[in-house]
């Protein structure tokens, strides 16, 4: 009897704990009293991602210590639900004071409707603007004014299984024909050349965009975004679409790539069932749980001999940024938080935790970044003339959707490269 009631008590306690932790976890909010009358509501989308949670908790804790007079209310959500949540809050006229936002088209919609505080005056003070990498600001700048501070930068490049390459005697390619030859060799060895899991549609965009950047040149989507009437993907878009379709038709992609999540594709890659993957710098983190003996290598996206673009350009963009709502009551506190989260101390901590590049100059130190990321920064990003931001985040939401489904269609052969390039061009024009 006693055991049973003890059980019941334990169960009740467990249930209470679960409920409590559910509140504190994804989608929850935590009040941290600091006394005084100043309050600051901060929203972010880091819930559910361990390393990012560690980063934001560090930033918030140190901020609270530095500003004991400000009462911080943290609201966290998971990436996919966050978008809806913020959208709803904005629409209902109850925006948070400080909010996490994707750069590009997503932020622009809020800016266009006059919901976001311009940061130009503040950025001019104490050289704040100059502390950011120049290439990181365009994606948060609209009509000449900057509306958010960039946090981290993701760059896409080709990652490969070093041990597998060595064992089979495969050479890292530099040109596109070399890449195709290599893919053929890999395929005949019974290994999938390219691990592409395109269920969520963004992974395939890297292939199209890199081919477009090499053949046509960088900056196309930025042109559309800035309202440039002459902006166009050009006739090269058809060839760029063709390169993606070629990969699919020659059997260089996994079977059913469109139905496979990027996590599933990563399992193929880490287990040596696939040899290469074109992915963001977050691949370093995604390779942390690889089986023993796995070694991650990287090389820049191959060059196209007749391409009009700069052959060393890198597909890279701001992954996340923070902005202040125009309706924020305590703007001073909000700006203080933006300054804090982009401070060298917090930014270097982020590099340490996540092995990612940050937008703050000098914060991505080799010690914090580790050898792989430091190498990428030096060998690939350092040699780039331009960093061309991810098309899909720069596009208007509806354009992104067309872009996504068109690339899926290229992979499964239901659309021709000519029709695909036309659809993408039209969608980009319609989406401004």
């Amino acid at each position, binding site marked *: 009897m006693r055991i049973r009631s003890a059980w019941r008590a334990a169960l009740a306690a467990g249930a209470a704990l679960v409920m409590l932790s559910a509140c504190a976890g994804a989608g929850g909010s935590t009040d941290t009293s600091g006394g005084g009358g100043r309050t600051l509501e901060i929203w972010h989308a880091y819930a559910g991602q361990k390393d990012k949670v560690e980063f934001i908790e560090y930033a918030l804790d140190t901020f609270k210590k530095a500003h004991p007079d400000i009462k911080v209310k943290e609201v966290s959500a998971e990436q996919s639900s966050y978008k809806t949540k913020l959208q709803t809050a904005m629409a209902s006229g109850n925006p948070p004071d400080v909010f996490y936002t994707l750069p590009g088209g997503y932020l622009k919609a809020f800016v266009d409707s006059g919901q976001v505080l311009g940061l130009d005056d503040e950025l001019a003070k104490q050289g704040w603007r100059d502390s950011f990498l120049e290439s990181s600001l365009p994606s948060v700048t609209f009509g000449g004014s900057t509306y958010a501070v960039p946090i981290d930068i993701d760059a896409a490049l080709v990652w490969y299984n070093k041990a597998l390459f060595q064992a089979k005697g495969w050479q890292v390619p530099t040109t596109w024909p070399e890449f195709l030859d290599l893919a053929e060799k890999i395929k005949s060895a019974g290994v999938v050349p390219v691990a592409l899991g395109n269920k969520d*549609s963004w992974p395939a965009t890297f292939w199209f965009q890199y081919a477009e950047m090499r053949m046509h040149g960088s900056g196309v989507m930025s042109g559309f975004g800035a309202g440039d009437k002459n902006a166009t993907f050009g006739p090269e878009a058809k060839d760029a679409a063709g390169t993606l379709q070629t990969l699919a038709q020659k059997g260089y992609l996994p*079977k059913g790539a469109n*139905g496979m999540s990027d996590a*599933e594709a990563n399992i193929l890659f880490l287990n040596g*069932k696939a040899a290469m993957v074109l992915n963001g710098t977050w691949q370093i983190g995604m390779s942390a749980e690889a089986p023993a003996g796995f070694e991650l290598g990287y090389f820049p996206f191959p060059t196209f001999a007749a391409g009009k673009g700069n052959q060393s350009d890198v597909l890279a963009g701001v992954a996340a940024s923070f902005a202040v709502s125009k309706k924020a009551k305590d703007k001073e506190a909000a700006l203080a938080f933006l300054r804090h989260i982009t401070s060298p101390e917090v930014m270097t901590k982020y590099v340490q935790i996540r092995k990612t590049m940050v937008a703050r100059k000098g914060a991505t130190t080799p010690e914090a970044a580790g050898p792989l990321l430091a190498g990428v920064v030096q060998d690939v990003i350092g040699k780039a003339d331009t960093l061309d931001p991810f098309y899909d985040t720069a596009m208007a939401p509806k354009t992104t959707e067309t872009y996504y489904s068109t690339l899926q*269609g290229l992979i499964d052969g239901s659309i021709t490269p000519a029709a695909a390039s036309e659809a993408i061009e039209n969608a980009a024009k319609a989406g401004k």
Partner: protein
Amino acid sequence: MSISTRSHAARRDARAALLFLAPAVLFLAAFVAYPLLTAGVLSFHSWDGVSPRQWTGLANYERLLGDRIFWGSLRNNVLVALTAIVFQVGVGMVIAYWLVRVVPRIKRFAMFVYVIPVVISEICIGLLWGFVYNPYFGLLNGFLNTVGLDELARGWLGDRSTAMPAVLVVMNLTYLGLYILLFVAAFENVDEAVYDAAAIDGAGHYRTFFSVSVPMVWSNVQATTLLAVVSSFKTFSLVYVLTRGGPNNATDVVSTYLFQAGFGNFEAGYASTIGFAQILLTAAVGVFVLGLMRRGKRGEA
């Protein structure tokens, strides 16, 4: 008792009834009727959810009529409904009959097994099946390779021709248990004497099933068919988890397309239009199915 006191009592009853109904009515008004009306108004607007909405009249409805993705997704909903009627209601009925009349001994255990997918979250089921269908380390291709049918192995969810059938299999297997559960309960309520009479008349299982069991539970058949159809037209989570409506919209159903329009493209107005069309179509199909079955019953009698 005089008439006046009786009507007084009736009035008092009516007042009490209103009092008890009020919370539910208020709740429905606030959380169903009001949003529904708002969505109806919204369906005539263009709105990205942030900037001021613009009145666009019937433009959204015109667009809907010519929207190939919408009609494709509606076609998928119809497929879901048709397979649900056959493989959930129909097969569920047969299995329930078999459990109740043929092998009542294993009924409890079998029902336990069939109901498992019904009580597991659809998200988990979708994720599990995602691994079953994985072309490289999935169970299905693994099985095909083991038995020597290598050429049948494929990327089930990524292949346009197999994606929708693959989703349909998951859906029907998931919800089958619910219908077995409902029909077992219904068949058990049929009076044993009716079966005895059928047995005396020399009816076998086939004859008993069609001439005794099914007509005896016809109102249940109607209700469950309606349930199957309506839930087929609303289905969302399994499709979303398995394929996100892809590849290239091949497995989109109306709900996933609505979600895409509203929360992917930020076209709240158009999403409302899709939602409204969905409600109307679901209601129309429901009425149609009910009418059809009422006639079926009359034919039977």
